[in-house]
């Protein structure tokens, strides 16, 4: 019997460089198929060709044994193939119901019946989403539910997820896995791209690993373990370097001078009376679920929140009371914030690596003259691309053309070139491939060893446990618990974060 979907020798070239090369794979009906690989391995390109977003250069796609070619995602959807993107494609200013039925409105589109139909439909999927809410009011998980519901409503037989769990909290992830189960029970086949190997191992039936645009291995999930996947992904075993270290062998750094102390800061409903301190020469990890106010607390400290949000409380930087209303004075006083949202507030779209890093230097207190110099830019860029091993053809390469990991390193270099006393990393390894995660962790550790006060905010427990010398747990806008690295376990932290 023919597979539901089969691709044969599918190839996509961009200006002669193959992003995907001669990949042949299949998808059975009712199968959950995980697609793994480092950034740049070709996962997204492959799935986008299947979903009609990108035209293949060569090769064929067979659906039910018949060759098909899609000129647009809409055409793929008519054949029952839907793709749920990393960045959701919902319209934020419309309600959930309007988004669900987008493109299928009747000429006289009354809202009431629309809401009733949407309500019934969402209930049939067991999605707890209010169809009358604006999408802009929803959290990441709920948005994703709406997106999935839309795909199911269009009778998609194959649903492709690109990094579905990247923006979800552990709780929401659980919901998502249950949802995958339900979709499977309805006969849907699922392809999902992920960086989280545990997830792939837990919920998939089959795993395919890509490397450098080529298929490395495809096999039923039972034949894989973490290490085997990682070896396939990178061609070497990274497991120990990555998350094995906290098993007791790592030394915990002591307390240096107190660099930052925050007392009773508040902002709206996101941050309520939060107090904590950060010390030099160690890594303070902050764990919290989404909505727990961890990012917001950091943004208040670094002056990133807009001034029109009132916030109270006292922030002391090295015993001096400060209150930053914009990031510029914070940067000049040595506070750098490395954003979790690289795309919208981390990179400059038209700049090269060198220009990006140099802009960081220009904005800091290190650069005093009003005049800029190309040679200074070049030497600064060379120093930082080497020091953080940013891999690119040259420092003049545009940042947008780099892989996620290298983009993140540029964002980090842009902050470190300012020689901060306190640097806050918000989700430093989000959307970053396995190899680069280890490198970024090494960079962060090096900074703490050199005596810098480092804060790492993460919603990924193994990351927090592995890298922190001290772990703060944030819940409902407040730091509620503090653990020393030795005493913390995943269970303890999670318990503090949710109760």
């Amino acid at each position: 019997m023919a597979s539901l979907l089969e691709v044969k020798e599918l190839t996509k070239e961009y200006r002669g460089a193959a992003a995907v090369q001669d990949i042949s794979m299949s998808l059975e009906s009712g199968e959950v198929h995980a697609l793994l690989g480092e950034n740049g391995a070709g996962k997204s390109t492959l799935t986008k060709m299947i979903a009609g977003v990108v035209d293949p250069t060569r090769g064929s796609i067979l659906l039910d044994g018949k060759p098909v070619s899609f000129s647009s995602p809409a055409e793929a959807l008519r054949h029952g193939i839907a793709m749920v993107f990393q960045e959701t494609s919902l319209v934020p200013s419309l309600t959930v119901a309007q988004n669900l039925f987008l493109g299928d409105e009747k000429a006289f589109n009354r809202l009431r019946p629309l809401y009733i139909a949407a309500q019934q439909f969402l209930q049939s999927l067991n999605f707890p989403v209010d169809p009358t809410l604006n999408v802009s009011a929803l959290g990441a998980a709920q948005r994703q539910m709406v997106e999935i519901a839309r795909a199911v409503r269009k009778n998609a037989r194959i649903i492709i997820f690109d990094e579905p769990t990247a923006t979800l909290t552990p709780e929401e992830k659980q919901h998502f896995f249950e949802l995958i189960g339900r979709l499977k029970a309805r006969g849907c086949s699922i392809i999902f791209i992920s960086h989280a190997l545990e997830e792939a191992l837990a919920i998939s039936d089959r795993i395919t690993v890509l490397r450098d645009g080529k298929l490395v291995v495809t096999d039923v999930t039972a034949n894989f373990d973490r290490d085997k996947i990682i070896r396939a992904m990178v061609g070497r075993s990274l497991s120990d370097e990555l998350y094995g270290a906290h098993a007791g062998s790592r030394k915990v750094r002591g307390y240096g001078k107190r660099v930052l102390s925050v007392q009773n800061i508040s902002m709206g409903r996101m941050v309520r009376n939060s107090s904590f301190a950060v010390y030099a020469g160690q890594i303070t990890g902050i764990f919290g679920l989404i909505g727990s106010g961890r990012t917001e607390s950091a943004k208040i400290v670094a002056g990133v929140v807009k001034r029109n949000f009132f916030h109270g409380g006292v922030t002391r930087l090295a015993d001096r009371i400060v209150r930053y209303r914009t990031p510029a004075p914070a940067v000049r006083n040595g506070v750098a914030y490395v954003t979790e949202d690289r795309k919208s507030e981390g990179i400059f779209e038209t700049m090269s690596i060198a220009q990006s890093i140099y802009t960081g230097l220009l904005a800091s207190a290190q650069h005093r003259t009003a005049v800029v110099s190309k040679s200074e830019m070049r030497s600064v860029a060379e120093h930082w691309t080497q020091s953080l091993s940013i891999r690119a053809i040259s420092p003049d390469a545009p940042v947008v053309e780099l892989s996620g990991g290298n983009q993140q390193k540029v964002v980090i270099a842009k902050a470190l070139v300012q020689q901060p006393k306190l640097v806050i990393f918000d989700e430093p390894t989000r959307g970053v491939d396995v190899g680069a995660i280890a490198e970024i962790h090494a960079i962060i550790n090096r900074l703490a060893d050199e005596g810098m006060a480092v804060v790492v905010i993460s919603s990924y427990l193994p990351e927090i446990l592995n890298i922190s010398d001290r772990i703060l747990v944030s819940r409902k806008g407040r730091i509620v618990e503090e653990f020393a690295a030795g005493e913390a376990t995943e269970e303890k932290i999670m318990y503090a974060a949710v109760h």
Partner: protein
Amino acid sequence: MTRAVSRKRLITQEKIVFAIFVLLFLGFSLFLPGFLTANNVALLLQSVSVLGILSVAMGATIIAGAIDLSMVALMAMSVAWALQLVNNGMPVPLAMLIGGGSAILVGIINGVLVAYVEIPPLFATLATAACIYGFGRFGLISQDTVYLPKNLGWIAELGHGRVYGLPMPVIVFAVLAAAIALVMNYTKFGRFAYAIGDNRATARITGVPVRPVLVLQYTVSAIVAFIAGLVQATAINSMNTRITDTLLIYEVILVVVLGGIGLSGGKGGIRNVVVGTLLIGTFLNGMTIMNIQFTAQNAIKGLILLTAIAIDQVINPRDEQTSQQGDI
């Protein structure tokens, strides 16, 4: 892992526009009697100088991700007021100080409205343009046209004078273009303007003082508008405030966009403005020699803009890879 392919765009909009300019210039020289005479070329340069001066400042503002629609209104009213004060017997330096000072004040107001009050630049400057013109004609200037006083001294040279045969307006244009190009490329302020135009949120988090830079940008724009107004008034011996009602501000934007400065900000440079100015200047001059109707000229200008943008899109399509970041 790294798939960064450094790509040089061999054919840019700037080069296309320059090529069209060269073709047009050659074409006019061959087929239009009276085009390629020293006198006409000087006239040509002079006639586009005011447009060019305004465009240079507009280009810088657009690079910073903003736009200044109040430039023409500001140049008309500030200069007309200064000239009227001189006509009423005020000493020239004091009148210039008041005219220039009022321009700077409007520039700061524009900057504050855009940067601090966070009104979209298009609307903020459109509204200030209306305010300047309305207030100026209502409260400051009694008739549409203010004639040039006789006692302006060296300032009158801005429009009249010649240096080694080159008309003074061209020199003002060249000096301002060079100065602003230097500022944009070799000063912190210029690099910050590019950063803000590229991605304002990133610039802010990086520590760029976004709001002061924008206020300064609008102030520079206002000062340049005042200078452009002086050149305009001294060249034709009067300042007609009705110039605010013409399409001049759109021609300025046309020059900037035609030259290849993206309206989204962060892209292009002052060279693009110069190239755009050359093309539009040659064109206007050629059409005037050919006696083409003003309305037909507008239609042709619009077509040129569309063609240039279309060609750029065909030759340099938006890359599938640049539209998505991170994973391939």
